[in-house]
């Protein structure tokens, strides 16, 4: 198969890469783009470990073709911190022990960020249902939900 050349924007930076037409965005991120922060847990859209944003919409990168990113804006975990400055969610996850093995953490953070951008004052139920597409097997979700809600409260107070 001849490779396809794709021009896109990732975390605000213009990027180009070569990929097979049937590569997913996750394949492209982890392969030619070298952005391995998004993880593959299932390749079928059931675990959320590959979560990214596409034009600010939360999506599973394993469920979109890499070629579809042409002309769009992609946001990944690598773009959450600003240089050395962590996003408040990242900081809170660390402080509240909202991660153990870390394999779901990238997806959880991207998904949580998307939630707070849409709804800065979510209830516990709203957080839980928003994150239902992000599987975690280590934490039982308790500390993750607490971290998201505390971050939301802190961000609202600012």
């Amino acid at each position, binding site marked *: 198969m001849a490779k396809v050349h794709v021009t896109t924007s990732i975390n605000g930076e213009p990027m180009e890469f070569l990929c097979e037409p049937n590569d997913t965005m996750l394949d492209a991120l982890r392969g030619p783009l070298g952005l391995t922060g998004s993880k593959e847990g299932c390749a079928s859209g059931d675990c959320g470990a590959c979560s990214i944003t596409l034009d600010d919409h939360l999506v599973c990168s394993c469920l979109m073709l890499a070629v579809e990113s042409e002309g769009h804006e992609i946001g990944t975990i690598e773009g959450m911190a600003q240089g050395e400055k962590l996003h408040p969610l990242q900081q809170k996850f660390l402080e509240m022990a909202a991660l153990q*093995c*870390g394999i779901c953490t990238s997806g959880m953070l991207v998904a949580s960020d998307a939630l707070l951008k849409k709804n800065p004052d979510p209830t516990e139920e709203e957080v839980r249902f928003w994150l239902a597409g992000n599987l975690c097997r280590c934490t039982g979700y308790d500390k993750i939900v607490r971290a998201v809600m505390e971050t939301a409260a802190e961000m609202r107070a600012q």
Partner: protein
Amino acid sequence: MNLVTNNKWIGQRTIRPDGMDKVTGRAQFAADTTMPGMIWGKVLRSPHPHARIRSIDTSKAEKLPGVKAVVTAKDIVDFPIAKGAVMLGIQDMRWMCRNVMARDKALFPGHPVAAVAATTEAIAAEACKLIEVDYEVLPWSIEIEDAIKPDAAVLHEFNKFEGKPSNIAGRLEHKKGDIAEGFKKADVVIERTFTTRPVHQGYIEPHACLISVASDGKTTIWSSSQGQFMVRAMTSMLTGIPQSDIRAIPAEIGGGFGGKTIVYLEPLATMLAKKSGRPVKMVMTREEVMRATGPTSGSKSTVKIGATKDGKITAAHGTFYLQAGAFPGSPIRGAAGCSFTPYDIPNLLSEGYDVVSNRSKVAAYRAPGAPIGAYAVECVLDEVAEALKMDPLDFRLKNAAKEGTKAAHGPTFPRIGYIETVEAAKNSDHYKAPLGKLQGRGVASGFWFNAGGESSAQVNITEDGNVVVTTGHPDIGGSRAGIANICAELLGIDYRRISVIIGDTQTVGFSNLTGGSRVLFASSMVVTQSTEKIIQTLRERAAKIWEIDPEAVKWENGAAHPVSPNAGQFEPLTLEQLAEKAPAMGGPIGAGVQLNTTGADGGFGTHVCDVEVDVDLGIARVIRYTAVQDVGRAIHPGYVEGQLQGGVAQGIGWALNEEYIYTKEGKVDNPGFLDYRMPVCSDLPMLDCIMVEIPNPKHPQGVKGVGEVPLVPVMAAVANAIYNALGKRFYALPMSPPKVLEKLDEPTQQAAE
């Protein structure tokens, strides 16, 4: 041993050392690694549950452009059955070599039959399709009841039970007193049979490895595993490459729960790398994980418990049949050894039967065997308590094991914290909270052995006066954070000055698996001893500078001080100052310790669970949960709670929705996260934890293993809660909606005899 009690760092919720990389996406898991020249490996797997392999023709695959190597069982070292067991820990290498690659027989759908390495994954997959395997399909059985039938197809002809070839591969028992006499004394006797389905550990990260073999045989392995020394040893034994030539590097691991305490891909990737001369990367798909890596056993357990009307248990008999999958080795030790252990029972017989059948070989899953046995025992205890009209927690208190009780599996208990967990559960706000309509509450207890075992560590002081700690166990729970807390406490310095890393097989001494709830227990022991040696060195060096006796120097708050004004008036010498002077004073400051640690004690937990049931749809939801556990000493409370919460979540999934479903052809019908239904965020409530601290007197910081106990009581707690809500008992898991509705439709059972 003097327990450390300062609590400046121990007990603090510090930031875990590996945390920054994990929240920024920088942490390197095995599938994230690359090497120049890397090619991809794929596995060809048997489609049949049971088949003799008459021949394998790989010639077409080898000719496909892009294919660099093909591997079959010929390339894996054989451990002949007839020569007897070759043990590596609890694994018999005769089964391991056949599990990683089928030899004469394929024993489950998904059993590896060959492997290919090629320049792209797609080519490797295409090449697998070109391999021609001549199978002689054989009859098969998966469920225990089918596998133990007299006419069942036997997986291993050499395996005999009671003189005949059989699928029963082993039996063990624990015995105490005389159960016949004991049951005679009972006023209430309840006997029930329970079944559970196989469930998978469910780690989100599939198995992955990247392996490079140089022409001189020097091998480098990055893999997702719970033990780099296990990876080295198994790979060495299965490929013939000497251990000293293998550097097994533990990547960050994305969950294990016991399922990554053995190898699947590493020996195959090593031989592919050796034959091709290129580094080979192999990553399992989710489907491969679900089909071909061990879930835990399905089971059939019968438990009989008798008690007098004042609430004393007089006798108990448990028979636990556990599925081993394709090769012997189900966790009957955990089922038979742990299930009755929280109780002081004068007459006891606990038997375990290991049954092989045509599904993937079982792998360890968090307190292997114990949750299965506890489900049965804790449910029967609930029925006995009810028959006696006793509160279920009071019933447990009445029969609780304590210091001096002789456990079923042998040891006599030292000071343990079981009673404290039951009392804490009783006194909790949760236990006293009112319940609403169609809501119910259940309780259960559980025990797990915990382990000690080998651990090595090095502690080195950097030239600028900070600390690097190298430990030997992959960190799956937060052990690096605990170690940093302990080391900071001992040295009296800010924990941020301590770097904790995990060494590989060539940079740190032998350390046994991450499993058995042992990592913090064992590694903190050797880190403590190493740090104490360093403190001794620091005191000696300060003493030399001050020209006083080392006994007159104390180490406190990160500096050497004279013990008293009598020793002399000296300004304290800090760690940084002594580090700076080190070259002139005898050289680098560091110490390493290797031990086979002992003194690990078992762990106990008692759980309280509330459920609410939608009786028209049969859906039970957990609405409140409290896990009480004797944790010894919570070195990092956040990560101890994390272990409790994680185990509870897995148990809720096991109780309500997780199960392996097979097609009529004997294949896994739900090999993915869509239909293998693990709890999602919206399924669970907050999971409360009560940590009871009864320090382990044999450990410098009082640490007890905590990781496995949390899974043990959960299914029974949920089942007992559903009974409390509905008045119906469940003797089979999962208690999924169709099963709940079916049970609600049954005519009400007769009262227990």
